[in-house]
């Protein structure tokens, strides 16, 4: 298939790996963060890391939408799901994210009407088909997913569907990156920029990273050759003493983003003053809520949610994984008490979570990586 096969060519990948080897300085250790959970998944699915020299280390960032949802937020969703007459809809991964007293899947088993949907449009269809019920959509995701929620809310308003509302937990990518860069825990040499978020916001919002922090960033696609090329571009910047935002994913990402999507986002959403991120704590202006014009469709205003902050389980080290401070297999419960079947932490739930990617593709320890 065009746009896929040519980006999985094994010979080209080997050639690219050779160019990467030529671009690194012996004796220097490079730490590159892939921001997006989709990239983390691709790296381990295709074995991209196996093609890199030992001194190029990939660090996994906070860009997995499920992983960053805190436990208290799951509790809020479960509370709404238990409200009388409510059909609570969410993406499949969210069903398995643990709250303080179980998951949405557990709530469903206890009798709540919780349904998995593939898109907000599916949730709206359920609302159309059940006019006597209240349908709530648990909206999560970065700027990639937020346009879908926004268009659906606009559609609901235009159609006069009054039994549809949204529990908005959309987050934005720039504030957590700034928080990571301000953190003393982490020393990074460059970033593989998120591909699909950039389809919406463009590459321009990342210009603060080279300008303020002196790190290069290359927006990348999700096929193995996309990732290898982006890594090569970052290493060439470092070798040449350049530091800028580059766009490897031009076939999808315009530098200015999708202006129609940005316009819809600005109509439907406004920034929350602050929002709690799992493992990262409260980050200012890092999430979205419904704007005044759409406040009547805000599920958190139709009902009361607990809104209680819940500390992560002590054994769980998702926060350190999300900040790239530890590798998944360095977590005390990785692959033992915490598995994709019975996750303790969010990073083990979604396929985009670093822990799930390591577990599913057999990266159980550093020794096995070396083999």
């Amino acid at each position, binding site marked *: *298939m*065009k*746009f*896929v096969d040519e980006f999985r060519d094994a010979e080209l990948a080997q050639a690219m790996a050779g160019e990467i080897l030529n671009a690194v300085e012996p004796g220097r250790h490079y730490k590159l963060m892939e921001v997006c959970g989709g990239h983390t998944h691709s790296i381990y699915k295709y074995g991209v890391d196996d093609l890199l020299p030992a001194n190029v280390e990939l660090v996994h960032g906070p860009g997995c939408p499920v992983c960053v949802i805190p436990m208290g937020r799951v509790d809020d969703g479960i509370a709404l799901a238990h409200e009388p007459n409510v059909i609570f809809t969410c993406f499949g991964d969210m069903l398995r994210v643990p709250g303080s007293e179980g998951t949405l899947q557990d709530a469903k088993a206890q009798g709540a009407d919780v349904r998995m949907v*593939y*898109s*907000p*449009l*599916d949730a709206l269809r359920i609302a159309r088909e059940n006019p006597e019920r209240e349908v709530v959509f648990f909206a999560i*995701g970065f700027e*990639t*997913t937020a*346009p*879908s*929620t926004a*268009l*659906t809310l606009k*559609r609901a308003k235009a159609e006069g569907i009054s039994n549809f509302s949204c529990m908005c937990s959309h987050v934005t990518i720039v504030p957590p990156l700034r928080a990571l860069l301000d953190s003393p825990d982490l020393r990074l040499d460059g970033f593989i920029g998120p591909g*699909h978020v950039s*389809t*919406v916001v463009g590459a321009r919002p990342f210009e603060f990273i080279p300008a303020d922090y002196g790190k290069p960033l290359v927006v990348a696609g999700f096929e193995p050759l996309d990732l290898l090329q982006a890594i090569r571009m970052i290493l060439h910047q470092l070798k040449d003493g350049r530091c800028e935002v580059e766009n490897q994913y031009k*076939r*999808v*990402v*315009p530098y200015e983003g*999708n202006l*129609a*999507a940005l316009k*819809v986002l600005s109509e439907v959403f406004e920034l929350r003053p602050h929002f709690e991120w799992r493992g990262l704590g409260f980050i200012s202006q890092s999430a979205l809520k419904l704007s005044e014009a759409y406040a009547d469709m805000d599920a958190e205003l139709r009902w009361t949610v607990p809104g209680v902050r819940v500390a992560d389980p002590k054994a769980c080290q998702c926060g350190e994984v999300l900040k790239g401070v530890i590798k998944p297999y360095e977590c005390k419960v990785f692959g033992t008490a915490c598995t994709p079947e019975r996750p303790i932490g969010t990073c083990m739930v979604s396929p985009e979570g670093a822990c799930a990617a390591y577990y599913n593709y057999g990266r159980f320890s550093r020794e096995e990586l070396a083999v």
Partner: protein
Amino acid sequence: MRVVSLDEADGLVQCTDAEGATELVDPALVGHVVAGDAVLVHAGVALARLAPEAVA
């Protein structure tokens, strides 16, 4: 995904992926699409257009 039909009354288009799975997609953010266009779809919305001849 590839756009296969445009005849949905509510402005949605039918799209299919490489494995043959189909999905109703809102094309509002990529402008006018025609059958055969390849679009990047996320959560039921086309976010970007790839090229007219895109999917073999």
